[in-house]
């Protein structure tokens, strides 16, 4: 934790950089270092589907648009092998590989405007103030788009999922117990793809139900540890558990399950999170932006259970 003197020194350094012609880039870099760290820590979409950097050379040009598009190959299905008697030839199939498209858009924070003389009176780390509010908005937007897409694939409990045609959203009665949790983990492997759950996403209220597990239910000292220290991120049921405070996106008593990202789709980052800062005379303006694109190419790696 920096001291107040250190924080004021940081603020002065930032102002000095903004004051010097041609030094805006350095000021932007100072904020960018911090921005990227927070982004990795906080967004659950980025943790479930880590962003892959994509360059101009990797984009696929289109006839009807000059906007960035990436085409991704999908593993093709193939006819099953069969047993045949001797002197019989195999049937033919022509190789056709499916593909899907990833398209991009920009996420931008609101643009903040402030008189620099009013900023001088702050004793907090001004760089953190500048970036935190922006990042919170952008993370909420990223996670919101991710959950909107999941809800589009898994619209209703008991209904077939879009794409796979198999039920991957179920309601399980009996609350959250060892038995119902294990039953939840069967939903995804039951599909034709047989994926195993790699990551579980719940909100910070749902996870507290696990604190109620006794020694015999949770397993030995783990129960003691979480009742003493609370839930810390750990592997549980051979899955990585991500806990979010975004209860508006991840409802209480709902469990979202994800296979390895390579079975789900792509999350591309064309323009990493960038903080734009400009000062004109005594007015400072700043905003953050990024360009990303994502698609689910295969939906068997998504599942949801609501505990009742």
């Amino acid at each position, binding site marked *: 934790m920096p001291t107040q003197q250190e924080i004021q020194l940081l603020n002065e350094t930032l102002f000095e950089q903004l004051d010097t012609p041609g030094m805006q880039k350095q000021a932007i870099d100072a904020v960018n270092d911090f921005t990227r760290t927070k982004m990795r820590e906080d967004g659950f979409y980025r943790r479930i589907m880590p962003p892959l950097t994509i360059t101009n050379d990797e984009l696929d040009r289109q006839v009807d648009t000059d906007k960035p598009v990436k085409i991704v190959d999908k593993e093709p299905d193939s006819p099953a092998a069969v047993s045949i008697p001797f002197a019989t030839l195999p049937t033919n199939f022509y190789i056709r590989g499916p593909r899907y498209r990833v*398209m991009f858009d920009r996420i931008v924070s609101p*643009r903040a405007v402030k008189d620099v003389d009013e900023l001088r009176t702050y004793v907090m780390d001004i760089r953190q103030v500048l970036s935190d509010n922006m990042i919170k908005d952008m993370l909420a937007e990223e996670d919101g788009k991710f959950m909107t897409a999941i809800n589009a694939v898994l619209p209703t409990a008991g209904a077939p999922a879009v*794409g796979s045609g198999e039920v991957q959203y179920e309601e399980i009665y009996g609350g959250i117990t060892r038995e119902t949790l294990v039953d939840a983990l069967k939903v995804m492997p039951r599909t034709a793809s047989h994926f195993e759950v790699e990551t579980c996403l719940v909100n910070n209220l749902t996870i507290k139900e696990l604190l109620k597990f006794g020694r015999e239910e949770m397993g030995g000292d783990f129960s003691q540890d979480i009742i003493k220290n609370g839930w810390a991120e750990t592997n549980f049921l051979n899955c990585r558990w991500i806990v979010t405070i975004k209860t508006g996106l991840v409802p209480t008593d709902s469990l979202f399950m994800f296979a390895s990202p390579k079975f789900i789709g792509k999350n591309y980052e064309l323009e990493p999170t960038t903080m734009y800062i400009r000062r004109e005379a005594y007015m400072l303006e700043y905003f953050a932006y990024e360009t990303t694109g*994502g698609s689910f190419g295969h939906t068997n790696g998504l599942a949801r259970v609501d505990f009742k």
Partner: protein
Amino acid sequence: MAAPDLPFEHAVDIKKGWFDMASLDYSAKLGTVGYTVPRGRVVHLEHVAGKEVFLPGVRTTDVAIFLLNGANDADVANDGTTASGKFVQQAISPSGKLSGVVATGGYEIDSTEFDSELSYVAGDLLTAPTGASSGDAATGGVLTNDGVTQFVTPVVGVVSSGKHTNHNGVYTLSFWSVWLPGAVPG
């Protein structure tokens, strides 16, 4: 496969007044519309089920918004099924939002989305009829000077240099954006 649509076949060029960080634009998702809304169409903002959406054309007091994006643009939509309903992908992005410039801003606009059968002279008032059903595809949000009466019909623009064929060989109409509410439902 549907014939590709070139980027300039349906478009608005903002000849004056955009872009600048202070330019007045607006973004929202499209409401329920029975046809593919191209770039350049005029829309207005409406609240449907508590959410802001764009719908084609303008009613009495609606402020016109000239779409920079079409509903099928690569940064707006990534439809995930084939014509027969087979799954291709489910988009996480783009989000479905379209963007446009607001008529109260000071713009001179060159748009492909106008009734090119009519004649236009400088000073003509322009409106854009509403219409979101599939039968309105040719007229919903399309600029016209037909039957426009000052202070009665909602006005979205005033013709500047008028109708011409642009450098891409596409008919366009140049006009200044204005906002003049109508007195009766448009």
